[in-house]
């Protein structure tokens, strides 16, 4: 199958694939933005237990977690123009990238809402009560007290989500978007050096996801500053840091970051 293995191709392909890294990151960034908005919209009815919306949100999350992203991609690609035609909106000529970002956004939103919900419920109830006691409105209590703490709890799971999303974008090629995987396939079929193309592809994904992980770890440290105050002096005496409640909650994964794509 193909030409004999030649290591120089692996290096030669790297810059060519890197030229499409922007597209991959654009999909990741775009769908992350959509996902955060959708995630909040879905999580709030569930947190405040708004009757009908609560049920709808549950069905939404269940659907997006219960079907493969590949099926969702095709479903939205073929279905969204038809549905929007009902509202007299013609998007059948919109670029494929739009469909891809919408689908990944909605998909990520479902997982994001679970993360938001879990981390908001993990904030001690007393914090909200204390906020009310000093006279904050419920909006103030949420944005000033709950949200910053919830964010710190959510970051580890959030970072898993982003990396999973990065890996999932490798499926966008199936709709014909020229991102890294699509580019690798094209390069492979041009020269018949498939395996070399995929090795460089894997290397780039690996470096990007490790970098993202490191960056998000730094962010987590920063957000958890308020918890670390007396840690430095204690560390010498403990072999292993005692698992805090926060850590335990954070390790309750939303289920994403599993073996998908």
């Amino acid at each position, binding site marked *: *199958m*193909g030409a004999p*293995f030649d290591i120089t191709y692996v290096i030669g392909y790297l810059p060519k694939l890197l030229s499409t890294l922007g597209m991959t990151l654009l999909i990741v960034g775009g769908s992350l933005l959509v996902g955060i908005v959708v995630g909040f919209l879905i999580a709030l009815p569930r947190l405040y237990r708004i009757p009908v919306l609560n049920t709808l949100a549950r069905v939404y999350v*269940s*659907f997006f*977690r*219960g*079907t*493969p*992203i*590949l*099926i*969702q991609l*095709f*479903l939205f690609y*073929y*279905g969204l123009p*038809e*549905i929007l*035609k*009902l509202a007299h909106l013609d998007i059948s000529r919109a670029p494929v990238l739009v469909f891809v970002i919408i689908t990944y956004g909605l998909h990520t939103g479902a997982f994001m809402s679970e993360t938001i919900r879990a981390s908001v419920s993990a904030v001690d109830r007393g914090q909200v009560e204390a906020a009310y006691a000093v006279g904050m409105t419920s909006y103030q209590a949420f944005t000033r007290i709950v949200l910053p703490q919830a964010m710190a709890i959510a970051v580890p799971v959030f970072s898993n989500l982003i*990396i999973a999303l990065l*890996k*999932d974008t*490798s*499926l966008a090629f199936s709709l014909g978007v020229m991102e890294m*995987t699509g580019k690798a396939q094209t390069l*492979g079929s041009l020269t018949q050096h*498939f*395996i070399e193309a*995929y*090795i460089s*592809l*894997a290397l780039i*994904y*690996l470096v990007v*996801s*490790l970098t993202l992980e490191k960056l998000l770890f730094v962010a987590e440290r920063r957000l958890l500053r308020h918890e670390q105050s007396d840690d430095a002096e204690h560390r010498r005496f403990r072999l292993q840091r005692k698992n805090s409640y926060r850590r335990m909650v954070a*390790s309750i*994964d939303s*289920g994403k970051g*599993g*073996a*998908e*794509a």
Partner: protein
Amino acid sequence: MKLDLSFIWTALIQLLSAIPTTLVITAVSVTIGFIIGLITALLRIYRIPILSQIAVGYVTFIRGTPMLTHLLLIYFGLPMLLDALSAQFGWSFKSSSIPMIGFAFISFSITAGAYMAEVIRSGLLAVNRGQLEAAYSVGMTTPQALRRIVFPQALAVSLPNLSNSVIGMLHGSTLVFTVSVVDINAKAQIVASTNWKFFEAYLAAAVIFWGLTLLIERVTAVIEKRINLYNRGGVA
């Protein structure tokens, strides 16, 4: 919109024939993945010199790259490697005798192994160290202590994550269309290609996957209840 409801039903019936393929791929990759994961996790927990570093590298690499690249690497790389080896040693083995689904089995097992390794490792670490010490103090050997005391508790802890991994592999199995194995996803494409009703066909496929996922979640909930019986606390 002209949604053809009757075609969704037709597609659903036709897609049923592809469910076994999807389930077989999932089952094989999860089973072999569990074994690989268990070995990898034990290597890392017992810090066996060189092997544990290899295990770390394996888990990092697999978790840092998309499942699709694993499949493509195995699909293109393995025949090359095997053919080179059989030319070297004069085996009569030809890589073309491997069925397409074999590549899916191999690559998905490798993928599942890395994810399972992390799940199992966190499960094993969650078991209190005192349990192992207690097992030693009543005279159990290490394998006995692991098998009788640690593993059952670790399994209970990691069951939710394991079920997520199984669901992940179920969803990941849709990737086999790239190596021309006909699973539910590929079947949907085939069914729709006769009359271009892709939306209806994928809707049917989505319903099947949704159902399978909910089924796995239900079964997990039942097993979890059963397996956590010892952990109910209280006095009765």
